[in-house]
């Protein structure tokens, strides 16, 4: 944890309110996000119990699996989920704009510009917490290899038509969420935690109710009191008044309310199956419907508070002005979305279970680059983030006190002005350390020449972005009295080296992975059909 975030957390404790950790919003928020509040059943990984999902705050769609261990009911849930998610995704896939992309021409091997479609906007999924992102991944993993009856008439448990496609999209969202700074799939606790520092640990910040209690405490309560109440307060029945944001549920809820309700549902179902005539069946169907309604009400009662909190979080975030580089990062999300749309349209198989060596290395390189880019962009967009970097010696701001014109040696001397900056910061500058400042959105580099006697002034030599002439272009060199801010980190990331194609994987990494085969769905085991 950086020094400034420690200070912010201490201040949150002493003032009883979360402190801003950012002055602008660093993540893209869609005008029409799809909020997804899922619940799972205890005891089985990724067995959905129900969910609230939708784009309309006032009209969420409630999906429930009354008997979570019943595979048919689970498929029905996933099919319903597909009916909500896929039309939402498709709406963005259809609207495109023209864009340019550099591609390698397969014949000449040269890099050429080609015109391609880029989706004008992209969908955005919002889940309450980080565990929700894990569940999205898990659901995607469990669905994308399934076969529908149409794809494979022999499949033992055919999936409903659109379920495998939903699995591919959820996998894409889950994978994209691993890229730093991406916004296709966001966890509300992560985004809020980026923008506010509370007086509790980051682990406790994963509780959406407690986190919001710090950021926006109710009248008359401090953040600490409100957070404690959100975590612990129970009603007369022993149930948490602020249910956890899931996907896991509170054991007291499981034991006291859910398990008996599911048992009543099971009994009603068995009774219906045993009905001997139509009249009896009608009666028992009524009992089954009532038992199902009871479970639906229970699921709604646990998801609706979280649903409200996610939207409250969105309200809070929307009050912040958007950061300058957010749009650029969102464009990369749009490229990612468009790319997957194209792969689906082209009939490519679902994402493999495991990446091959080259894909894994490429993904890691991309994420490292995005991480460095995100850190630099957040600092450039936000003086409060930059203050943190200044405090840790990675940047400094100050006033220009002197500018001396100097030139490089060589046949064509170029301007290399010496700029003295007076600063109260303590940057970690060594001999010839490179520093950068933003000049009209482009980084201008300089090198550290030396410190003045008093230690409060540093002398820099400006190295570039001054034009081609002997005299620097106007405005390209800071002037006496200017406020400047230099960073020790680079503003833009270089692209890494190109890795070999997967079919040219070298011997050190096991050689080429071989033909891609269509992977089968997980085999059904005895546990699957309890």
């Amino acid at each position, binding site marked *: 944890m950086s020094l400034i975030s420690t200070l912010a957390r201490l201040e949150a404790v002493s003032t009883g309110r979360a402190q801003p950790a950012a002055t602008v919003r660093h993540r893209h928020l869609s005008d029409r996000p799809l909020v997804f509040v899922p619940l799972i059943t205890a005891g089985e990984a990724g067995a959905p119990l129900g969910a609230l999902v939708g784009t309309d705050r006032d009209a969420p769609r409630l999906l429930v699996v009354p008997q979570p261990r019943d595979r048919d009911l689970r498929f029905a849930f996933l099919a319903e989920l597909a009916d909500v998610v896929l039309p939402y995704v498709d709406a963005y896939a259809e609207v495109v704009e023209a864009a340019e992309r550099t591609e390698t021409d397969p014949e000449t091997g040269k890099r050429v510009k080609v015109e391609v479609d880029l989706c004008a906007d992209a969908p955005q999924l919002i889940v309450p917490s980080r565990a929700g992102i894990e569940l999205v991944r898990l659901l995607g993993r469990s669905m994308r290899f399934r076969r529908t009856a149409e794809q494979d008439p022999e499949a033992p448990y055919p999936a409903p038509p659109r379920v495998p496609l939903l699995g591919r999209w959820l996998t894409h969202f889950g994978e994209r969420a691993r890229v730093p700074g991406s916004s296709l799939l966001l966890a509300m606790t992560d985004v809020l935690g980026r923008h506010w520092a509370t007086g509790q640990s980051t682990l406790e910040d994963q509780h959406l109710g407690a986190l919001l209690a710090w950021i926006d405490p109710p009248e008359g309560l401090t953040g600490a009191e409100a957070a404690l109440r959100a975590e612990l307060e129970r009603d007369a029945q022993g149930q948490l008044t602020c249910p956890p944001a899931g996907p896991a549920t509170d054991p007291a809820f499981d034991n006291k309310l859910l398990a008996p309700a599911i048992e009543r549902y099971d009994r009603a179902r068995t009774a219906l199956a045993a009905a001997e005539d139509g009249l009896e069946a009608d009666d028992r169907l009524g009992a089954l419907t009532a038992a199902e309604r009871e479970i639906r009400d229970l699921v709604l009662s646990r998801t609706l508070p979280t649903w409200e909190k996610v939207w409250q979080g969105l309200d809070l975030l929307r009050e912040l002005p958007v950061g300058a580089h957010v749009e650029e990062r969102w464009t990369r999300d749009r490229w990612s979305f468009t790319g997957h749309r194209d792969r689906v349209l082209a009939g490519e198989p679902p994402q493999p279970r495991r990446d091959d060596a080259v894909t894994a290395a490429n993904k890691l390189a991309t994420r490292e680059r995005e991480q460095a880019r995100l850190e630099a962009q957040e600092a450039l967009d936000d003086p409060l983030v930059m203050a943190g970097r200044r405090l840790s010696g990675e940047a400094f701001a100050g006033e220009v006190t002197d500018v001396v014109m100097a030139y490089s040696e060589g046949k064509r001397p170029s301007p290399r002005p010496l700029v003295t900056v007076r600063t109260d910061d303590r940057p970690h500058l060594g001999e010839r350390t490179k520093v950068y400042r933003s000049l009209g959105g482009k980084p201008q580099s300089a090198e550290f020449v030396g410190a003045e006697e008093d230690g409060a002034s540093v002398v820099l030599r400006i190295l570039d972005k001054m034009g081609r002439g002997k005299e620097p272009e106007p405005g390209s060199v800071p002037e006496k009295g200017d406020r400047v801010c230099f960073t020790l980190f680079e503003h833009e990331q270089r692209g890494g080296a190109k890795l070999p194609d997967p079919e040219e994987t070298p011997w050190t*990494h096991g050689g080429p992975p071989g033909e891609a085969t269509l992977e089968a769905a997980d085999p059904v085991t005895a546990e699957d059909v309890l």
Partner: protein
Amino acid sequence: MTTLFDPSAAAAQATDAILHDTLHGTARGVVVDSPPGAGKSTLVVRAALELAEAGHPLMVVAQTNAQVDDLVLRLAEKKPELPVGRLHSSDADPYDKALDGLENVRKSAKAADLAGLAVVISTAAKWAHVKADEPWRYAIVDEAYQMRSDALLAVAGLFERALFVGDPGQLDPFSIVGSEQWAGLTYDPSASAVTTLLAHNPDLPQHRLPVSWRLPASAAPLVSDAFYPYTPFRSGTGHGDRRLSFAVPPDGSGPDRVIDEAAESGWGLLELPARHTPRTDPEAVRAVATVVRRLLDRGGAATSERSPDPTPLTADRIAVGTAHRDQAAAVRAALADLGVTDVVVDTANRLQGREYDVTVVLHPLSGRPDATAFHLETGRLCVLASRHRHACVVVCRAGVSDLLDDHPSTEPVQLGTVVKFPDGWEANHAVLAHLAEHRVSWQP
């Protein structure tokens, strides 16, 4: 002791076996594990010269520009007439200016300019951009344990066979983003190059250099036991071979007492009162700086097997090691206050592969309220505790062993990954237990 151990003979035997496998073996790769200061660079230079003499075009992959320049200088020193290519980046000042004075070293940012030279040396990052129609017959990959698997993936197409040399006990490569997704895969891109190489080619011959020439007899057993429990090594020198003495008698202060203890026994622990502190603990930082100042002021002289006469302990023979960069910066500032400017102060990552007479280490866990995986990393402590030829002084707050007991390793177990032994927790305890015997408590 039943048989007399001859370090030179043992080392020579190991080297011969390595060179034989490299030059005449059938395997596509040879892996050499080298403990700290076991003559890894000497081996690389010798293997390069022998391969070049046999007429095989050779590419050498190192990890940093400093390592590359160092290798070029060593090669030129051994065999000035050998045509060597230094492939460098197109940044400003891409290589050490000392290379300009070497007649047979050609420098270029383009691999094509260096075609046909006996040996071409560059960093893994630069090699990754090279496209070769014809792969090199041989390659030497230096510091292979510090190279990431994805970096090897980018360059492995350039060579047919390779000698991989490195120290398995130093810091593992790291990535700035999570890579749990690939944990357990044989080609996990964030793993070390050697891990991936051996996972796919388990039959490659593996060798080990058995003797550390750097570490004194006082340090080799501890470092070997704590960090290389299954691949022990010995010191190349005996207990009487190295001596550190000071002209100025101690003034009775903590720093002087710990210096004397370290000079006598090879290790010294300057223990400050227990306290939770920020990373740049001002008292500990000042204590480190004071120890360095006193080391210089007391007119130290080091006697070793290298020369019969004592050599003065000058600033360039002393280094300070820390875990974090801000700590290094704080120590530098404190040293500057005491008028010391030319002592190297750096993090464990940057001290890897370097050698000094005396090191002063700010313990990674000093003053911390928690023991994270970063601070427990075995390699970090190993690097810090194995840079010295004579003595190592560790500055630390009291209470670290309690801290360790409060924070047992809780890293999630990943299926399919090779568990590294020893874990950082155990290695830290082993080192602390040894240091406790050389403790000097001091209230600054």
